[in-house]
């Protein structure tokens, strides 16, 4: 076994009290591809940033080809032989694709005002290699999304780095583009580079990687071949949840009550990246529907499109029978369609009570008092903390003032297991005692399934499965790892 090109050990990164990365260590040999996987918030991106010193690790060692580089400034680590392919690109507006690749080839000098002759030649060769030959004289803003990713790739490999780090290599790409990119990445391996692929799930990278290192909440959970990791008990629990217990409730006669929200053939794109493709869902009045999907699948986009926060390219959204096209987000919210965003948009410096009052400010005084009483019954902890500032509370509470349809976007994101359980109980009580219609977006299946009447699976901007939670585990579960 040859000496590894990248070797990290004991890597630890804390953000305040949160341990984002805890004692992580692995090595990548020349000509090897390691997949670093973990769900959102597992710390995998932080590991990648620590390797490059984009965030400085608190402890641990990072060795590039035997040289200790932990804590070095980023540009020196880059020169030591590390290239990184960022997920998002910020290209220069007035330089062509070829000029962008040339920049990556320039020496770090203040005094050099003209590029050497070989730079242009080499840039052309790199452009040809990553498949940018057709577009190399165009400006970045005229490029397709995949070509922008190719450009990032081209820049990262321009200096022939020993170690290549790739952040979510296939995000936003079509199947053919995925095949192209896989081939390119495989060619790095063939040339003896060490490659680290960071992704959400094993499935996406299984065909490409030699080994997989799985993380969860900053810790190592498994390591081995893609198959071994997929079979690993802990990994299965992290992704699928342990045993999924379904909380049944008396069946409701959904058909008789009609459809509350109906989305037909909705497509949304951000610039060149397609975020939703031909998505159709419907939610009956009083129903509890979960949409499960990994980070980046398009859940938040779907919710934002429903709430009028992002424009759709095609498709219709009907709420309580009326087309929502052309309405402002505020009008939609007042119509009773309320979203609790995953980013916890509480007014952090106001007290809990002030936040609650704000949520109910368009109700009459009596209604408001009634709602508050109901809320405190639902979330007893809020009553005792009325005066406290709202910074640490989960998002679900402040906006729950009499909505017809409540959209919850990843309420479990970043929560400790204990809190999760409380939230789950509240969810159950909400479902049993009220007539509210809920649309829940989750990547945590354990949380999403028990309460749901129906489940949709969103994957790469498309709905790929729908059915009852009972059928989920056997039909959709394995595809979810």
């Amino acid at each position, binding site marked *: 076994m040859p000496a590894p090109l990248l070797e990290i050990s004991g890597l630890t990164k804390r953000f305040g009290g949160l341990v984002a990365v805890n004692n992580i260590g692995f090595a990548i040999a020349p000509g090897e591809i390691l997949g670093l996987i973990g769900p959102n918030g597992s710390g995998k991106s932080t590991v990648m940033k620590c390797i490059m010193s984009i965030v400085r690790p608190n402890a641990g060692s990072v060795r590039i080809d035997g040289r200790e580089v932990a804590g070095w400034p980023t540009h020196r680590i880059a*020169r030591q032989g590390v290239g990184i392919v960022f997920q998002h690109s910020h290209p220069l507006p007035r330089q062509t694709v070829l000029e962008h690749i040339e920049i990556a080839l320039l020496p770090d000098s*203040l005094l*050099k005002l003209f590029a050497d002759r070989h730079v242009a030649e080499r840039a052309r060769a790199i452009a040809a290699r990553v498949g940018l030959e057709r577009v190399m004289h165009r400006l970045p803003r005229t490029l397709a999304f995949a070509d922008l990713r190719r450009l990032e790739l081209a820049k990262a490999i321009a200096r022939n780095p020993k170690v290549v780090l790739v952040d979510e290599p296939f995000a936003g790409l079509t199947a053919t583009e995925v095949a192209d990119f896989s081939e390119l990445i495989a060619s790095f391996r063939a040339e003896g580079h060490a490659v680290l692929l960071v992704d959400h799930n094993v499935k996406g990278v299984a065909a490409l990687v030699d080994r997989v290192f799985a993380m969860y909440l900053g810790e190592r959970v498994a390591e081995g071949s893609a198959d071994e990791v997929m079979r690993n008990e802990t990994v299965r629990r992290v992704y699928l949840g342990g045993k999924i217990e379904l909380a049944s409730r008396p069946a409701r006669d959904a058909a008789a009550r009609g459809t509350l929200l109906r989305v037909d053939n909705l497509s949304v794109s951000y610039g060149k990246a397609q975020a939703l493709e031909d998505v159709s869902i419907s939610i009956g009045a009083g129903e509890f529907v979960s949409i499960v999907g990994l980070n980046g699948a398009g859940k938040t986009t779907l919710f934002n499109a429903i709430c009028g926060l992002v424009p759709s390219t095609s498709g219709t959204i009907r709420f309580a029978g009326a087309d929502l096209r052309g309405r402002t987000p505020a009008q939609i919210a007042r119509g009773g369609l309320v979203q609790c965003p995953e980013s916890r948009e509480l007014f952090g410096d106001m007290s809990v009570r002030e936040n609650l009052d704000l949520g109910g400010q368009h109700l009459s005084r009596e209604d408001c008092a009634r709602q508050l009483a109901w809320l405190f019954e639902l979330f007893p902890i809020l009553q005792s903390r009325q005066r406290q500032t709202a910074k640490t509370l989960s998002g679900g509470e402040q906006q729950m003032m009499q909505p017809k349809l409540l959209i919850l976007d990843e309420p479990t994101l970043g929560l400790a297991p204990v809190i999760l359980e409380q939230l789950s109980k509240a969810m159950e009580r909400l479902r049993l005692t009220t007539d509210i219609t809920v649309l829940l977006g989750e990547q945590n299946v354990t949380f999403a399934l028990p309460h749901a009447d129906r489940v949709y699976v969103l994957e790469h901007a498309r709905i790929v499965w729908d059915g009852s939670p009972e059928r989920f585990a056997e039909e959709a579960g394995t595809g979810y790892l």
Partner: protein
Amino acid sequence: MLRSRNVWLGLVALLALYLLPFWVSGYVLGLLTVAYYYSVAAMAWDLLFGFAGEVNFGPSFLVGLGAYTAAMLDHYEGTPIWLCLIAGAAMAVLGGAILAVPALRLRGPYFGLVTLVAVLLLQNLLVLFSGITGGEIGLDIPDVLSVDDRTNYFYALVFMTISGGLLLGLSRSTAGLILQASGQDATEAAALGFNVAKHKLAAFCISALFSGLAGGMLIFYLGTASVGTVVDISVGVQFIIAAVLGGRRTIVGAAIGSIFLIVAGEILRPLGELSTFVVSGIALIVILFFPGGFLGALRQRGG
């Protein structure tokens, strides 16, 4: 195609400026002389904002340092003009570096805030030590570049042409490309192996050099150095508006913007107090609706 046409247009316009003294009065030449000195400060500012991606809210800190260093040397020591100018430029670079080294460590709007505070500090110092600096009234300068309008005009025009040429060349060089990449995304530039801090600091020093020189030249033209003409925040704001108005990331646009601001102010002079208001209004409209400035709008129309 378009680019070469614009280059020709620019050269013709520049030639016209050189021939201007044969047509117009000394009064107009005097206005343009000030405009050219301002334009160098504005172009130097664009190197920072347009290329290094840093907003310097205190360009008049650098201009003022250069101007007052030159003014005080001439006033008290009778130092020759060329030496005063070099000392002023050197002081601006030094002051700029002392400011930039800690400030560039900060991210986001904090760099801009530090530069803003620096102007206020300089202004306060000048007023506090008014016994030496002349304070609010200003410091008279025994030497002048020339008493002839035309000669002064040519000094300023040649200074602008050379400074503009150097700054433009630098911005188009490979070092300028790296600077632009650092301004666009510092993390990405560092990941490509570029020492972002080094490039930004160099840009700041170069910007300071030209700003300091412009400040020195300006006071030797005016014959007096005062807070109101070279240090005040409103002076700095004028450079900034000029650069943005003309077109970010173009260098040349900053010069066009400076000349526009001063000429427009003069044309609207009959409006009295209202003229500043109208010019600011025009600037606001251009920035709101054509964020690319004059040259940006031109580029867009060209395709």
